[in-house]
């Protein structure tokens, strides 16, 4: 099994799906000659040509809409939105249209479309380029939302999303692109199903639940606590809608403590839903309330020191975990 970057895992999945199914095509800004703003589509325009790897003008509403229409006729468009911040001009297409078509027309027609887009922050891109808006989509019936945290899942879930008959928002992450991990052997065509969380680290004292890049942070926090003899389990949600709360519940029943961390704003965020459900299902199991960590609830500032203070960093996750553990008598408060 090879180690490749998250970016390369995505590229491979796209390449293989383009080769497998002539109805699959890509659309987006700068995905052709320019090879993608983050180079995820490198080489694909040269290999498949401009019809299957279609460069678009700066018209997010227009080309997301075009994806919907093409999907209604049975094609399988994979639309790239350069970063999730730029999906807002296309919000009406995603929420009022893609999510509605299937049900609104009584199931007569469907929208097998994927929207790929990276979220995330950390490179001083400031307020309009540093958001994590996935909860807005996870809230909407008719959409599916997935957010893989490693190359293997990125590869396998992108395949699942492309083959799914419903609109899927596929959340990537700017920082993850360069991180490496194992992927299936070439040609193995592994599909990672939508709707299943994964226990990516076993532990017994505390469960940290996260998605996308924050899973990496959670794993590092787990390592830190490990050195103190505290055993942290990490659950990777992978899918936000549907949400696999079963896996979370099973973990929390075991550890009796939970923390949900996310890169976006915690208030009305992903963690709110997870925490609410955990409290309900594990009411008698929890040793302490579910703790939550998110990015600072402010438009992301530019200056490095302010940005650093705003991120949902490992330090912040670790501090919240420590407080929680200390409240339960498991760790020293610091």
């Amino acid at each position, binding site marked *: 099994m090879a180690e490749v970057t998250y970016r390369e895992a995505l590229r491979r999945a796209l390449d293989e799906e383009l080769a497998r199914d002539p109805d699959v095509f890509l659309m987006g800004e700068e995905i052709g000659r320019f090879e993608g703003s983050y180079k995820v589509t490198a080489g694909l325009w040269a290999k498949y040509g401009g019809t299957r790897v279609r460069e678009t003008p700066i018209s997010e509403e227009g080309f997301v809409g*075009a994806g919907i229409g093409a999907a209604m006729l049975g094609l399988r468009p994979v639309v790239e939105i350069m970063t999730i911040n730029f999906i807002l001009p296309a919000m009406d297409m995603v929420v009022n*249209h893609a999510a509605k078509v299937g049900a*609104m027309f009584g*199931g007569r027609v469907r929208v097998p479309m994927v929207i790929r887009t990276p979220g995330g922050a950390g490179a001083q891109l400031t307020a309009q380029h540093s958001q994590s808006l996935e909860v807005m989509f996870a809230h909407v019936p008719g959409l599916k939302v997935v957010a893989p945290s490693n190359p293997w899942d990125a590869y396998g879930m992108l395949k699942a999303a492309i083959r799914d*008959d419903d609109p899927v928002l596929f959340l990537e992450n700017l920082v993850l692109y360069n991180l490496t991990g194992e992927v299936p052997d070439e040609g193995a065509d592994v599909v990672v199903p939508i709707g299943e969380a994964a226990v990516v680290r076993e532990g017994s004292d505390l469960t940290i639940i996260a998605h996308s890049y924050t899973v990496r942070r959670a794993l590092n926090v787990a390592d830190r606590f490990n050195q103190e003899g505290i055993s942290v389990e990490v659950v990777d949600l992978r899918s936000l809608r549907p949400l696999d709360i079963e896996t979370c519940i099973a973990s929390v029943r075991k550890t009796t403590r939970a923390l949900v961390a996310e890169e976006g704003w915690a208030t009305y965020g992903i963690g709110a839903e997870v925490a609410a459900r955990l409290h309900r*299902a594990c009411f008698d199991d929890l040793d302490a309330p579910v703790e939550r960590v998110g990015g600072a609830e402010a438009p992301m500032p530019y200056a490095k020191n302010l940005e650093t203070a705003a991120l949902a960093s490992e330090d912040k996750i670790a501090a919240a975990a420590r407080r929680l553990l200390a409240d339960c008598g498991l760790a020293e408060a610091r």
Partner: protein
Amino acid sequence: MTKADTAKDGQALAPEHGLDLLRRMLLIRRFEERAEEQYTRARIGGYCHLAIGEEAANVGAVDPMGDRDVLFASYRDHGAALAVGSEPAAVMAELFGRATGVAGGYGGSMHLLDVERRFLGGWGIVGGHLPIAVGAALALDYRGETGAVLCQFGDGATNTGGFHEALNLAAIWNLPIVFQAINNHYGMGTSVEQASAESEIFKRAAAYEMHGERVDGNDLEAVWSAADRLLRRARDERRPALLETVTYRHRGHSVADAGKVYRSPDEVEAWKARDPILRYAAVLMDRGALDEDAFAVLRKDVADEVTAAIGEAASAPAPDPDGLYAHVYGDAGSEAQFSRMRPAGPFGEREGTASWRR
């Protein structure tokens, strides 16, 4: 089938063809009058936007559509559905919210469709379906099919960003699509002159180096020939176009609007005098293809058809209430995907979610 029994611009349609289209316009008119009545009797809920006065714009543009062509419409879509040949009973049943409706009762008045007849829907967000129609044209082109898309929308839609992006994409990608602006002079209570800096809508095509043209939307054959020509051009030459059909809605914006605050009785009367149906009937009479008796028979005929449709719709069953979630997701694996979401789910998300202690 691309209609071959017909004529170049300015030439008359064959008499039988003309009579058929007259009948279709009459059907729409009657259907709408009865829909209005059924709405006031509360058999129809939600909004109800009538196309009375716009029959020529609908029938004239839809009829030249070929077998592989695809139609999109706005929420003012009863006329589009009937023009494309959907069963009046199935359309009325949709308005009544019945299981036999064209969308199974899920869509209602604003969201008719008929996939078999390649009518891909009535859409409720002004301007929203234009980019989607472009995507349908893209799919036709991608697959090398010779069809084209006819996308109808109102004058008000031309001031949305979606209009601009859609026309630009269609133009740079050379897609087979005809954008039909049904200019009925108002978007709700706002006149075209007030809302659009360029009130001659067809001229906006120039911003995309696209062909634009305006026809009298109450002249059935004028609409027909223009639509036929532009659809052929779209199919054969992959050149999009903007066709403006100028017409008028006799009624208010929806059944709830009297349509009086923002326009004068004189104006409304003047337009009623240009009624597209009476006008075309007169043309056919002039040509000797129709007389008063035959016209009366046609009217009686469609009236009976609509009455039958109402009867059929009224006796059709409501949708199965267990079907509330039936079409939200279509992928075969969705049930399994969502199954792990149920435990501890908020009540109301899926009926039957277990309470916490059970």
